[in-house]
């Protein structure tokens, strides 16, 4: 089922995130899902044919070669295998972001071999209690570790995600080593980024820069010792972290608006600048993706910078941290990233 690509000119967007459902069987304390914010966010799902049609339209318009399926819990969608097959037929690489609870021995053979490029599963702690508490569900730890083991037994590529909070940071090294023992191919060390349900739990979850820096040093050691890829996908503000001290780790800044951006498609066809943001640029079923990208709303999103960053040499790269977090926690894209706001007094501005 390969659709002809209409003329996109020179423009191309390599990848996007597709939130296939807003339903989830976990209730993570740190969940940043847009619809968990105290704003009116459209809820619902489209039937399979409409879902595939809108996905195909977005692929046609962007020429994307990678789609990350997310949610909610994407495996809760009955037609998830149809969506995956549709994407694979279109020659698109598919990443699956899942909590692993539904990746049982029946589900995995349907996805393997070669339908999913990377499975992204949370491993929040090597301690069962901590993982389960953060996930908001009993047995979450056993489910996810079993899923990793099953996926590796099926020779799949698995990346574990560690969301660094003050609750699980003490177990970071053990958790990383557990991921290695289970055969994971890499681990993401993502600092807790307030938003969604997480915005209500900042006090319980937010770790201080000093604690995070200690964990980054450990991560650097682990990456070197085991030759194990560790990346930090959530922006670590360079005024709070000296990232060059951790040469074995990869760091990223906000990619919104760049060709690395992960524009997000929700189950109803709404397009957002990223999966953390609540800003809806338009709906792919009724509008053009590039018109949304070129819209004043998107320009406003890209241009927003906290006043704190005035005069900082890295302002254009760092973009002031996560503006989506600022948007959902402070109601203002140009406010300080709540993490930076909390530890502004420790920041060393790069003038």
């Amino acid at each position, binding site marked *: 089922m390969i659709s002809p690509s209409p003329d996109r000119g020179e423009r191309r967007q390599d990848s996007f995130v597709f939130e296939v459902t807003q339903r989830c069987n976990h209730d993570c304390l740190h969940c940043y899902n847009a619809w968990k914010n105290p704003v009116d966010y459209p809820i619902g799902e489209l039937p399979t044919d409409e879902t595939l049609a809108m996905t195909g339209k977005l692929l046609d318009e962007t020429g994307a070669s990678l789609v990350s399926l997310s949610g909610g819990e994407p495996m809760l969608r009955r037609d998830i295998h149809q969506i995956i097959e549709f994407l694979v037929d279109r020659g698109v690489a598919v990443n699956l972001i899942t909590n692993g609870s539904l990746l049982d021995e029946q589900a995995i053979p349907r996805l393997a071999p070669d339908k999913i490029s990377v499975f992204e599963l949370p491993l929040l702690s090597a301690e*069962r209690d901590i993982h389960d508490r953060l996930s908001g569900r009993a047995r979450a730890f056993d489910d996810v570790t079993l899923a990793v083991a*099953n996926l590796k037994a099926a020779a799949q590529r698995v990346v574990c995600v560690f969301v660094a909070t003050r609750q699980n940071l003490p177990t970071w090294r*053990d958790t990383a080593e*557990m991921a290695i*023992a289970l055969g994971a191919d890499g681990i993401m060390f993502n600092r807790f980024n307030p938003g969604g349900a997480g915005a209500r739990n900042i006090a319980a979850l937010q770790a201080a820069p000093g604690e995070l820096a200690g964990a980054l040093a450990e991560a650097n050691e682990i990456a070197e010792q085991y030759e194990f890829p560790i990346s930090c996908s959530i922006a670590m503000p360079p005024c709070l972290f000296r990232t060059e001290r951790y*040469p074995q780790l*990869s760091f990223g800044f906000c990619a919104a608006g760049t060709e690395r951006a992960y524009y997000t498609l929700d189950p109803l066809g709404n397009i957002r600048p990223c999966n953390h943001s609540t800003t809806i640029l338009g709906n792919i079923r009724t509008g053009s993706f590039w018109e949304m990208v070129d819209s004043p709303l998107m320009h406003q999103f890209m241009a927003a910078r906290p006043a704190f960053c005035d005069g900082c040499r890295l302002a254009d790269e760092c973009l002031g941290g996560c503006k989506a977090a600022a948007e959902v926690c402070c109601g203002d894209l140009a406010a300080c990233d709540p993490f930076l706001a909390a530890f502004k007094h420790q920041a060393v501005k*790069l003038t």
Partner: protein
Amino acid sequence: MPQRVMGAWLVVVGLVGLAAVGVLALCGRDVRAAARRGPRWKRRLLAAGLSVLAAFGWTGRSGEAREPTAVATVSESKTGSADASEIVLAVFRMRAQLAELEKLTAARDVNGPAVTSTADAIESLVAVLRAPGNVGKLTPKGQAEAARLLALARKRLPAARALVPVGTTDLVKSPQWQVVADAWRFAGPLAVNGKSTSAQRKEADAKLKAAAKAVSALQLAGLLTSAEAGLLTVDAARIRTEIYRNPPTDFRGTCYDMAYIPPAQASLGRLQKQVAYLKTIVGSDKLAPAALDKVIGSIERDVAILADPKQTKRLPAAQKAGAEALRKQVSLLAAQIKRRVLSARLGQTAGWATVTDAMAFGAKIGQRNTTAQRKQFTGKLTAAVAALAALAKADALTEGESTLMSGELQRIRTAVTRYPPTDIRVTCYKMAYNPPAKRSFERLQKRLPLLKKLAESGRLNTAVLAKVLPTVRADIETLSREKELAQLRKDRALAEAVRKQAAPVLAAIEKQLASAGAGK
């Protein structure tokens, strides 16, 4: 008759003298020295003996001692050893070279290379004469002559070098800069120390005077800006003032006529002169780091004095507010200049070379690169990160600059690793083709100790462990197959060793699982 008696008497005296000379010579004594000392009869007797020897053509002196005029001074060296004769020669040569230098510097068009080579020759002779114990081997007259020549050299050398045309666009390589550097090197410590002899003061004066001429020449040649030259001039005055603030150490008098100026007053006076120069330098594109290096330290010291309430309390009330404003202004300007000086020096450091090498390599390989290039880049990147940290520690980079550079390295790294390496055709480049046996032993190496620890800790559900173990077993089996091992070549021995270690660990975990009851 009386003439005969006199002749016979002279012969007898001559023979006795000759005998005495012979005895002294046999005893290893210096006959000529002995002939100049002691009672008159002894001196005359020995002189008679020596005259007899002279009548037979023996002078008792080596060839060089026959040189005119100088012989009169230095031929009477205390010993006839080779060392002494070298020192005598050095004195002769020094005298000749100084005369030559005077002639060269008096010429209308100064012959730069000739002045330089003559000055160099004099420097080496000065070194010979200054070596401990050397001048002491000369007679008192010889010593006095050597001292005279050394003083002359001290005076003429810097002045002569300052006259040599600049002839270069590199400040540090110019002969004039050597004069300036030499003056600061010699006089600076005397100023800091506060103790110096009269001779050292004279020498410092001569060097500073020559340095002033050299600074003018360098300014004329465009190697120093007028602001930099101005700063050096103020600093030279400071050095001189500080050298003279106490009596010379060899001064025996009880009073000293140097007026006391409170340090804060002196610092304020200097900074008032320097601030305009500093402003000009900050606003200028040109910068002579070598010149600014010489003065920035003393400017910072003056700023520190004005920041010290104990020192500023001696200032008149009317000056205090102005002094504070000036201190802040100069402090800011000096910090800006210091950063520029350090940045200008940065390019010469090995650490910076490491950083730029990593950047250049990253830029060269770009986004399309091989696994080998990527590995090489990671090595360079690690070295560059360490170099940045070292440069920041050494104050050659600010924290911000170091972070900025490291951000740039990260950006390059992101670009380099953006796409799978060109020698790998699979989607996920981490799944680069490795022989299965290599993948197996690498996995086993990493995982087995961790799995053992996990099994012992009881953290993982045994069902999970049970699920993981087949993959471990599969790796061990892979390493047992000759066909797979054959692909390993140099890693084969290592792989076999890992397999041998893995088997008992696996068995222990399996036993543990069995006793715990898999599928708990």
